């Protein structure tokens, strides 16, 4: 019964497992960003995001005050709880932390285990228990400052929306969002319009030099855009566009066109020749063939290029930096995040992760609304 077409490979499970593995590997950075965006800043710097659900061991320092010291059996005794200070209460909120180790010197803050008794430098002893309560004893009266207690505590995981609050309410973020849209939408539509016409001509119209033109377009695919930034900007300046939205639209259009033409042309050339010839015999001009037949049938290709172009103009930082003025009025989101949020808060992973997720939202929306066009078989039933 095992004919060739119907035979199932015995290694299907291996294929499935490796696909799942690959998907997971690809997803890991995104998951990491998502988790990090909800974590507390201090906790991010202590443990990786994959340990987020576990308690974090963090070290703290508490200065005590000698007030309230009492004499008992000839010894001066000072008591308190490290978790009861205002600072710590703010840190922990309602959660219970567990003290694991403590120390008396900053160079070795986890010298002793909880419950042990340590020698104080100024004489006397210090005992800190795991619930945070401590007791210092000394034969002499404590000085103007009480002993400084260093300790490590298991702090329960803390999740917070603070990062989102910071990013979303940052000054001028709404303006930056509008600016990004202002850049992205025309920078997606203009190249598609131009490329669709070019692709039709290159695919279905006979004219001398067509092959060379196609080769040139493919050649342009390999030109890195970084190479063109400076000459292009000086050109823009000399024709009076300078740094402006018009300038960045043209720049994105130019950088996007080779791929757009290439992609659309290859799609259009694959449309059944009979359909196009039939339209011509039915009396359509080239322009009518393009608008009535080729364009509607090329919708999947148009949609997929639109998604690409939208995504990388949305996420673009470099071109925006070069072709837009740097004042706050024309900052796009990527520039805003990189300059204002991260520039002044170097290494703030929580903000970075959150910004990434905020800026992903719109592209995701675009992707999910357009993706059905990518899979729909538009040509079904046309020929045969």
């Amino acid at each position, binding site marked *: 019964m095992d004919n060739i077409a119907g035979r199932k490979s015995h290694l299907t499970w291996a294929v499935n497992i490796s696909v799942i593995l690959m998907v997971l590997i690809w997803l890991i950075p995104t998951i990491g960003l998502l988790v990090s965006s909800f974590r507390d800043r201090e906790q991010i710097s202590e443990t990786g995001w994959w340990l987020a659900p576990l308690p974090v061991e963090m070290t703290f320092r508490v200065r005590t005050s000698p007030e309230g010291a009492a004499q008992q059996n000839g010894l001066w005794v000072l008591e308190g709880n490290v978790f009861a200070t205002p600072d710590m209460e703010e840190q922990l909120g309602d959660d219970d932390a567990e003290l694991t180790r403590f120390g008396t010197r900053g160079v070795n803050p986890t010298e002793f285990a909880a419950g042990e008794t340590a020698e104080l430098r100024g004489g006397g002893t210090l005992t800190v228990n795991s619930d945070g309560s401590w007791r210092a004893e000394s034969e002499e009266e404590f000085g103007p400052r009480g002993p400084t207690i260093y300790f490590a505590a298991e702090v329960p995981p803390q999740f917070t929306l603070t990062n989102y609050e910071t990013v979303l309410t940052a000054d001028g973020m709404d303006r930056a969002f509008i600016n990004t849209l202002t850049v992205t939408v025309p920078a997606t539509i203009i190249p598609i319009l131009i490329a669709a016409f070019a692709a039709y001509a290159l695919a279905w119209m006979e004219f001398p030099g067509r092959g060379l033109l196609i080769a040139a377009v493919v050649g342009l695919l390999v030109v890195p855009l970084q190479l063109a930034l400076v000459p292009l900007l000086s050109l823009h300046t000399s024709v009076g566009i300078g740094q402006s939205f018009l300038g960045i639209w043209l720049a994105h259009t130019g950088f996007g066109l080779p791929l757009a033409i290439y992609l659309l042309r290859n799609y259009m050339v694959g449309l059944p020749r009979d359909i196009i010839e039939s339209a*011509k015999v039915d009396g359509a001009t080239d322009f009518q063939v393009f608008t009535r037949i080729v364009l509607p049938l090329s919708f999947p290709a148009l949609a997929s290029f639109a998604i690409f172009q939208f995504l990388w103009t949305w996420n673009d930082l470099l071109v925006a930096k070069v072709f837009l003025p740097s004042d706050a009025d024309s900052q796009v989101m990527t520039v805003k995040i990189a300059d204002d949020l991260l520039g002044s808060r170097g290494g703030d992973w929580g903000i970075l992760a959150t910004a990434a997720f905020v800026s992903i939202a719109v592209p995701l929306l675009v992707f999910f609304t357009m993706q059905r066009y990518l899979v729909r078989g538009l040509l079904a039933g046309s020929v045969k």
Partner: protein
Amino acid sequence: MGEVNFNNVVKRFDDGTVAVSDLNFSIEEGEFLVLVGPSGCGKSTSLRMVAGLEAITGGEITIDGEVVNGLTPRERDIAMVFQTYALYPHMTVEQNMGFPLRMARVDPEEKKRRVRSATNILGMENLLGRYPRELSGGQRQRVAMGRAIVRSPRVFLMDEPLSNLDAKLRVQMRGEIARLQRELGTTTLYVTHDQVEAMTLGDRVAVMHDGVLQQLAPPARLYQAPETVFVAGFIGSPPMNLCRATIMDEGGALVAKFGSFALPIDPGSIEKYPNVREHVGRDVVLGTRPECFFIASGDLPENKLVKAKVDFVEMLGAEALIYLPTDAEQIDGSTRFGVKAKTGANGGTEPEQLTLVARIAPKTVPSHGEMVNIAYEEDSLHFFDIDTGRALR
């Protein structure tokens, strides 16, 4: 309305291959002309040149006396049905059929009326709102026909419109196309590789081979009086037996000797091929139709019989084919006389020996290995020149 003329039409592709050489014929007004030939014979190219989808390298094509060489398809007022139907997948049946009218800027009311009347003719009123992907093969074919007839063009062009259908549907649609063409009376050029379609549909049939028109005649004449060896071998199923034979004069009666076999040439056949007389003592191509053989019933003179041993038998029910190996040299009409064959006509390969095919009544079927006496009907021998492949008329 709708007379098409081919005047010395030549088609040469960019790589130098000649698809059509010096084509001359005309399609009368209202005529159904079928172009038939094996694949690659230039029949589709000829059709596409009429449609304007293929440039004409030399000569000219006229429609109603107007030279159309330089015109685009839309300026020629023709309609074409493609092998793949080429329906527009994003349009409904109604939009598909209305497309030519929309391109011609026909008034919407008028357009609607004409689409309705076309759908009535084709009997598919209930399909108007469907998309091509929701239709069966036969229905799609019908929509393609409908799209051609809505605009009442000067000429219908059909490029193997039935070859994507299954056998049963093909027969049905064949009848429908014939009926439709008769009713509309529109000049039609129909391309096919199927000789049954060609014979049943065409008022006249043009047989092409290697870009050369072999014969243009009504179907019956094509069968009875083939002009060339190629036509003889192409029309008819199973095809005509073709072999090298020598014309001998045996006491006033002409005899065709092929290998160790011989058939007397009856006066009726000589009347049809008078040139045979000039070829006494020379080699010719002898053509015999399988269906003209019959099992000899005993009262025939010895010299009219062919004795041969049966190699195998194919029983088809209404008839039986018997295969009789001979030692005569077989002639292949499609390779020997074509343009392509000229360079190496007799180059190298051993000539194949003819296996004579005879189609006989199923009542007296001999068995494998049996010796049979078969005879041949009068008036039905065919003779062709061994060098040019043309009929000896």
